[in-house]
C-alpha cells in the first residue's frame, strides 16, 4: 500500500514541527490518523451514505435471490394434441425435463383442430402440437414460448431421426457417429474463461463505481474545507501533507470496506444458488482484485484530492474533475473491450493495470511474475502521483481567488 510509504516520522512540508525545541508534546506524525479517522467517522454517521450502502446490498441480495429462484423454478406447459399427434406429445412430456430442467410438459388430448385452436386462444393451454405435412407445427397464441419451442424442436428432431433410422435398418448412434465436435482452449479452459469474463466485468464495474463515488466524495470534502477556510485552521495545525494522506487513507479504507462488503455478500449469495460450485473458483482471484484495487484507488484518490483543491467552490468540482472522470471511464471501458496485444500492454499500464492484470490472472493468461511486475508499476505510479498531487494540493489549497488550472497550481508560489 502506498500509504505505508509515507512514514509517520517524515517532517512536514517546509518545516519540521516535531524537531523544534519548543514543540508541544502533540503527535504531528500521527496527525494523518486523526484526519483519516474523522473522514471515516463522518461518512459512517452520514445517513445518505448508510442508506446508499444498504440499498446496494439489498439490490445485490435481491438479484442473487431472483437468480436462484429463477434457476430453480420449473414452468409447466400444457400442450394440446389431437389423436394423431398424441404419440409425439407424450414423447415430448416424457423427455422435456431431461433436456431442460426448467420445462415440464402436460398433454391435453383434444377432439380436433378447431377445439385445439379454441383452447390456445382462450389461454387454457399454452400450445398446440400438430402434424403438418412432413413436419410439425407448434401453435401458440400471441407470443412464442422459447423454452418450450427449443425442447419441442429437440424432441421432434430426435424422434424423427429415430424413425428414419429404423426405416433404414440402422440406429441413431450409427448415423451420428463421428459427427461430434468438442471444444478445447490452448490457454485456460472454457468454464474458467466464462467465469473470468463475468467476474472481470463485476470487478471492473465495482472499481469504476467505487473510484467515481468515493473520488467525488473526496474532492467535495476537500473543496468544502477550502471554501469554509477551515483548511486555514488545519494548515496552521498540521502539515498539509498529513491532511492529504489522512484524507486518502480514510476514503480508501471506506471504499475498500464497501468493496469487501459487496463482494462478500455477493459470494455468500452465490453459494446459496445452484452456482455455488463457482464460489471456490472465484474467491482466490477476488484477493488479487482487492490488492490491485487498493493500489489503483490510492493513486486515483490523490488526483481526486487535487481536483477538489483546484476548485474554489463546490460547483466547480465537476469541471476540475472532468479529466479524471474521463480516465475512470476509460479504465472501465478498457476492461470491457480491449483484447489481444493491447490488453497485455494495458495490463502493465497504470491505472488500467488495476483492473486488467487481475482479469488476465483470472483468465490464466498471465504468470505470477507478470502480476508482481504490474503491481510494482502500479504502486510506483501511485507513489509518484501522490507526490506530484501533494505539491498541487498544497499550492492550490490555500489559494482563494477562484478556480485554478493545473498549470497555475503547479507554478504558483505557496
Amino acid at each position, binding site marked *: 500500500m502506498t500509504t505505508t510509504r509515507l512514514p509517520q516520522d517524515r517532517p512536514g512540508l517546509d518545516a519540521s514541527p516535531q524537531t523544534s525545541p519548543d514543540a508541544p508534546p502533540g503527535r*504531528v506524525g500521527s496527525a494523518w490518523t486523526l484526519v483519516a479517522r474523522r473522514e471515516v467517522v463522518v461518512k459512517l454517521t452520514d445517513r445518505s451514505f448508510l442508506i446508499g450502502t444498504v440499498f446496494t446490498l439489498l439490490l445485490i441480495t435481491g438479484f442473487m435471490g431472483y437468480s436462484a429462484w429463477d434457476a430453480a423454478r420449473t414452468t409447466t406447459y400444457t400442450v394440446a394434441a389431437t389423436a394423431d399427434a398424441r404419440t409425439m406429445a407424450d414423447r415430448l412430456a416424457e423427455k422435456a425435463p431431461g433436456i431442460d430442467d426448467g420445462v415440464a410438459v402436460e398433454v391435453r388430448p383434444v377432439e380436433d383442430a378447431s377445439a385445439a385452436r379454441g383452447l390456445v386462444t382462450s389461454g387454457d393451454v399454452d400450445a398446440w402440437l400438430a402434424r403438418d405435412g412432413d413436419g410439425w407445427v407448434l401453435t401458440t397464441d400471441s407470443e412464442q414460448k422459447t423454452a418450450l419451442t427449443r425442447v419441442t424442436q429437440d424432441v421432434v428432431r430426435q424422434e424423427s431421426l429415430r424413425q428414419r433410422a429404423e426405416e433404414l435398418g440402422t440406429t441413431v448412434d450409427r448415423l451420428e457417429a463421428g459427427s461430434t465436435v468438442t471444444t478445447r482452449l490452448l490457454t485456460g479452459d472454457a468454464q474458467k474463461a466464462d467465469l473470468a469474463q463475468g467476474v472481470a466485468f463485476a470487478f471492473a464495474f465495482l472499481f469504476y463505481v467505487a473510484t467515481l463515488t468515493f473520488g467525488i466524495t473526496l474532492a467535495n470534502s476537500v473543496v468544502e474545507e477550502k471554501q469554509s477556510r477551515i483548511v486555514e485552521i488545519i494548515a496552521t*495545525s*498540521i502539515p498539509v501533507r498529513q491532511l492529504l494522506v489522512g484524507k486518502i487513507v480514510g476514503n480508501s479504507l471506506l471504499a475498500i470496506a464497501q468493496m469487501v462488503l459487496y463482494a462478500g455478500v455477493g459470494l455468500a449469495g452465490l453459494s446459496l444458488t445452484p452456482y455455488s460450485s463457482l464460489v471456490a473458483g472465484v474467491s482466490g482471484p477476488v484477493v488479487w482484485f482487492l490488492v490491485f484495487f487498493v493500489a489503483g484507488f490510492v493513486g486515483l484518490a490523490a488526483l481526486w484530492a487535487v481536483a477538489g483543491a483546484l476548485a474554489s467552490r463546490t460547483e466547480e468540482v465537476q469541471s476540475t474533475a472532468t479529466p479524471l472522470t474521463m480516465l475512470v471511464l476509460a479504465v472501465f471501458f478498457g476492461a470491457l473491450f480491449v483484447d489481444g496485444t493491447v490488453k497485455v500492454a494495458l495490463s502493465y499500464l497504470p491505472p488500467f493495470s488495476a483492473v486488467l492484470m487481475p482479469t488476465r490472472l483470472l483468465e490464466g493468461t498471465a504468470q505470477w511474475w507478470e502480476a508482481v511486475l504490474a503491481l510494482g508499476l502500479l504502486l510506483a505510479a501511485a507513489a509518484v502521483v501522490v507526490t506530484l498531487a501533494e505539491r498541487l494540493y498544497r499550492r492550490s489549497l490555500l489559494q482563494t481567488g477562484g478556480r485554478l488550472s493545473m498549470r497555475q497550481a503547479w507554478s504558483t508560489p505557496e
Partner: protein
Amino acid sequence: MLEIRELTRRFGDVTAVDGVSFDVRDGILTGFVGGNGAGKTTTMRMVMGVLAVDAGEVRWQGRTVTAADQRRFGYMPEERGLYPKQRVLDQLVYLAQLKGMAAETARRAALEHLERFGLAERAGDQLQKLSLGNQQRVQVVAALLHDPAALVLDEPFSGLDPTAVDSMADLLRERAATGVPVLFSSHQLDLVEKLCDRLVILSRGRVVAAGDADELRSRGPVRYRLTLDRDAGWVRDLGGIHVVDVDGRTALVEVIDDGAEQHVLREATARGTVRDFTPVRPALADIYREVAA
C-alpha cells in the same frame, strides 16, 4: 512578542502588503485597523504561515517564526465556517487534537468554553443548526481551545450582537492578561478604540500609523472650540489657523502655525466675552480618515 518586519506580498502586479512592520506585544490587545483591501487579512495569513512571504519576516520571541510556533498560535480566519454537518463538540475536539491536545482534555476544555458562551446544551448539535452568531462563538472557541501562545483573529467582532461583543471583548482581555499577545483586525473603530491598548492602522498595504490610542490622538490635528457671545464669523479672517466650521457663535478651528490658538483667544477677548475655549481631542475615526486618506 510577535514582531512583523518589512513584510511584503505581491499578487501579480498588485502589492497587497508593502513593507509592513509592527509589534504585537505580550499581554496587550493590538487592534489592526484598515479599510477593505488595506492588506489586513493578507498580513495575518502571512503571520500564520498560511500564505508565503515575498519579503520580510515574522519573528517570535526574538527569532524567525517556525511552523511549530505557528502551530501553537490560535487563529480565526476571515471567512467563517467549520464543518457545517459535524457536531459542535466533535469538531472542536478534532481541531484541538490536530493541535496536539489529548482527546479527553480537549473535550473538557471545549465544554468549559461552550458553557461560558451559553452554548453547552448545543454541544451535540450540528454546527449548521446554530445561528450565525453562535457559529462564530464556536469558531472563537476553536481558536482558544489549545491555550494558544498567541492569538491572531481576523474580524472576530463582525456579525456579533452587543452582548456577544462584550463577552468576546472580556474573553480577549482575559487572554491578553495571561501574557499572550493578541492581534485582531476590525473596521469598527469605536470598538477598537475602547478595547485596544495599541493600534496599527493600515492603508493600501502600508502601516500609516501605529502606537497606543493617546499617542495616535496626539498626532492628530490640534483643534479648539470657541464659543462667544456674538457671531464668530470673524475668525475666518485670521491667519495661522484653518477654520473647520463656524456655526453662529461657535467656531471650530485647527491650529496650523504653533501658538496661533493664543492669537485667536486674544482676538476673541478683545472683541467681547469668551464663553468657552477648549481643545478638542480628535476621535480615532478622524485620525484614521486623516492617515488613510
